[in-house]
């Protein structure tokens, strides 16, 4: 089960989404620790780190680093692959996803993620299926 997903750039949190409950007051410290841990890892180092009860899986996409904290029992390689699935979905949704979309459409990032992961479990492995309801809702809302 995945617990949260963070997107960080230049060492600060740009986006965070929690799949399971965690106390809001402890979040900033956790996020800071996790991001420092992942950013400090060497470029060619292994992308899995241990963080207490969670395994951190991180992956760089351009200047942005995506981190997922998952249970130790999860398949790390698959989480790693999921991160690219998510980014590909964002690419497809925004045309070409870049950091400015985090700035301008942060709620869309949440919505795309929600169509792919609920309660920490993967919901939809197909990008097209994941995006179609969002796109349909977008057209309904803009009317």
């Amino acid at each position: 089960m995945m617990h949260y997903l963070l997107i960080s750039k230049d060492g600060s949190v740009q986006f965070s989404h929690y799949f399971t409950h965690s106390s809001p007051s402890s979040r900033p410290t956790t996020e800071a620790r996790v991001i420092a841990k992942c950013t400090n890892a060497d470029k060619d180092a292994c992308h899995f780190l241990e963080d207490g009860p969670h395994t951190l899986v991180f992956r760089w996409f351009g200047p942005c680093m995506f981190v997922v904290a998952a249970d130790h029992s999860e398949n790390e390689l698959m989480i790693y692959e999921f991160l690219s699935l998510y980014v590909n979905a964002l690419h497809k949704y925004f045309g070409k996803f870049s950091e400015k979309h985090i700035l301008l459409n942060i709620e869309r990032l949440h919505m795309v993620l929600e169509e792919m992961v609920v309660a920490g479990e993967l919901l939809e492995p197909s990008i097209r299926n994941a995006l179609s309801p969002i796109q349909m809702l977008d057209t309904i809302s803009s009317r």
Partner: protein
Amino acid sequence: MNKARDSLGTMSSIKQVINDAVEKGKEVYEKVRQPNPIRLRDLIRQIRSAKTAAEERAVVNRECAYIRLTFREEDSVWRCRNVAKLLYIHMLGYPAHFGQMECLKLIASPRFTDKRIGYLGAMLLLDERQDVHLLITNSLKNDLNSSTQFVQGLALCTLGAIASPEMSRDLAGEVERLLKSSNAYIRKKAAVCALRIILKVPELMEMFLPATRSLLSEKNHGVLITGVTLITEMCLQSPDMLAHFKKIVPNLVRILKNLIMAGYSPEHDVQGVSDPFLQVKILKLLRILGCGDSDASETMNDILAQVATNTESSKNVGNAILYETVLSIMDIKSESGLRVLAINILGRFLLNADKNIRYVALNTLLRVVHADNSAVQRHRSTILECLKDADISIRKRAMELCFALINGNNIRTMMKELLTFLENAEPEFKATCSSKCVLAAEKYSPNVRWHIDTLLKVVEAAGNHVPDDVVSSTIQLISETRAEQAYAVGELWRHLSVAQLEFQPMIQVSTWCIGEFGDLLLNGQADVTVEETQIIEIYQKILWASQCSITTKEYALTSLMKLSARLNQEVGSIQQVVSAFGSHLNIELQQRGIEYSQLFTRHNHMRGPLLERMPPFEGVRGNGTEGEKGGIAITNGLDNSPDNQSLLNDLSSPNNNNNINSTHENNESNALLLLLGGIEPGEGDTVQAVTSPATSTINATPAPRSTVNADILDLLGLEPGPTAPSNTTTSTSPAQLSHTNNSSSPALLLDGLLNNTSSTTTTTTAGIASLSTPTANSTTLPTNNFIIPQSLSQPSVPGIVAYDKNGMKLDMTFEIQDSVTTINMLATNTSLAQVTDFLFQAAVPKSLQLQMMTPSSTSMAPSATLTQVIKVNNPSKVPLRMRMRLSWQANGSVVQDQGEISHFPPALWQ
């Protein structure tokens, strides 16, 4: 005419201007009264452009104040935008709970845009507060019954993210209905919701069972993947479900086969592999279903072989599938050929250039090493190579794996590599690595000489990161192997004479041993020639070095004192050094200095006998569990002595105070004399001492006593007086013994104990001091007797077994101090699985106060233990009861249990 028209035109244009001005003024007024809120992106820009944290806070606070204002004014036009901004502010870590109600209002709105933001806000902002949950439950219920699939979908998503147990109970019916919906989009979301619900309320599992089965006959991959996940969770949670779902193995095999055989489908293709996400989920479920079931394993053998051989291993996705396949093959009762195939895949992984793959390989080997040690042994050299990897995660896994691979045959080579690793390891590794080295050496060392050598190397290599138990294990080993003491002390002298003073543990071990066995060093038995002056020089260097810690200096001072009975010429200079400490700034050292000085002057005649060698420590090193059991047994001939008995009782009762001195002085001295002098040679080899609060009061008012008795009591009466006889095996922390063996102050003794409790909890509770009886002059003076209080626990209160289920055993022992009962809980993992995330929670009746200390660890290997101290203040002396809740993870699943402990011994509150 023209003029008139002109003036008319002017008039109208003036009117126009005036009207315009009025309009503008109105607009400006509107703006001032209620400005449009800035957009989210502008807010983000403002926040990002803040140069300092204070500036950022100011921007956020201003915006929050504004948002609150609009919320109060019930402004529904901008509510959506404001909530969106609040979500961003929340993400930055600022409090945003005041937006919860607004989210609920948005959810209730009929507009899609509002609903989306409202639900998003609910997911992100809601905490565990009950009142809000009740409100949102109603909105969710409405939306789950909506006729629009998107509204249903939104509600399901939210429920999946925030469902509490109450919500789960209230909405399970709706979810179950949607699980049977004809719409795949709704079905998959309902399945994840059901997953969340059964995680919160396992009893509801039955309800979803029929609908869950039909999820597998689905074409849509989203529904399939969520269905498989749901079944996996059900199987993990309940053995009944596991048995029930055994029959779906053929279905799963068929789905997996279709996935592999299916041609290219653009929708689910990831780097040429057809839906790896689904494949991995199915493989995981197969593993759970096939574990320990030969029929099920038989059914899946072929497909696993197929996946293992056909999956492309050049890409990450392929490796992810292979990784899952290997785990499944090793977990189920698969054919031996298949297992060889799996181990070979891991071998290939280990050599892969991609660090992620190497990490995964080590991780997997670590998980299968208990099942098939010999297969993993084949990759030993590669694993040892990984110890030198630049990557920290890989090295950590490799280290853990190495310790799992050590056995009697390979210990020499493995230990050599591990010592090299230990020397260069990061500080965070050193403590665990050195502890594990000690355990491995303990278990497999080929001979004692090698064992001692290894421990010394471990202490040296780990520098200052040696845990205390390693120091004490080393000392204990040397103390109990008489034949190797000369060798060990020689080696240690060599270390000490060139020692760098910043590494404390090595100095501690060295000084302890040289203090005890210094005579072996001088009489040429050790393989070195040492002058007495050299020894004194080194000790002076240590004692005055600023790099040495106080603890090290305590070791050194006691050791030096011991040496005064071993050396011949330099006794004078020892006296000088020791008395110089009488004015040391550290109170502990000062006390030792003054007390030891007394042994040169007033009690010089006792110095020799008092500083005799410690008897060898017997029993188990490192692991406190066995000592713990031994600590309860009290059988000794001295039990019969009524004086002694009464004294023990008196002193161990918590109500002790000053008057004990006068009333029981007689008893006390008798008892002590009896203990010290009256023991027949050879009988009752060990005596346990018990410290109690009363000891300090004895110290406070020393009464005049006569001659020899007085001497003994002066010396030993300062020590906690009462002694409980026991011939249990000793399992003591030598570090503590060396702290305390020569000292004569209870404060110091207690200090020593308290200082050490954090690091050597297991040994402390298990500890029993030994007091060997004198053989030569047993009637007048003790020769080598030290009463060493080790355990604060009162033997009069028996320990209890608080819990013994599900592969977990909790033992509790008690210590009473006034109204505070200290419960030492020892948790033992009696299962075969690694336990992680161990959590013990407790509650006591209101009149009691409870304080939980942090546990010594949260994970336990099979048959390992951890300790946790719980303090209960019981001022009104009511019967102690405790509700407890336990949870831990084993085999990847969470075990939870709760119960009440009501069988505490009544002595705790009487």
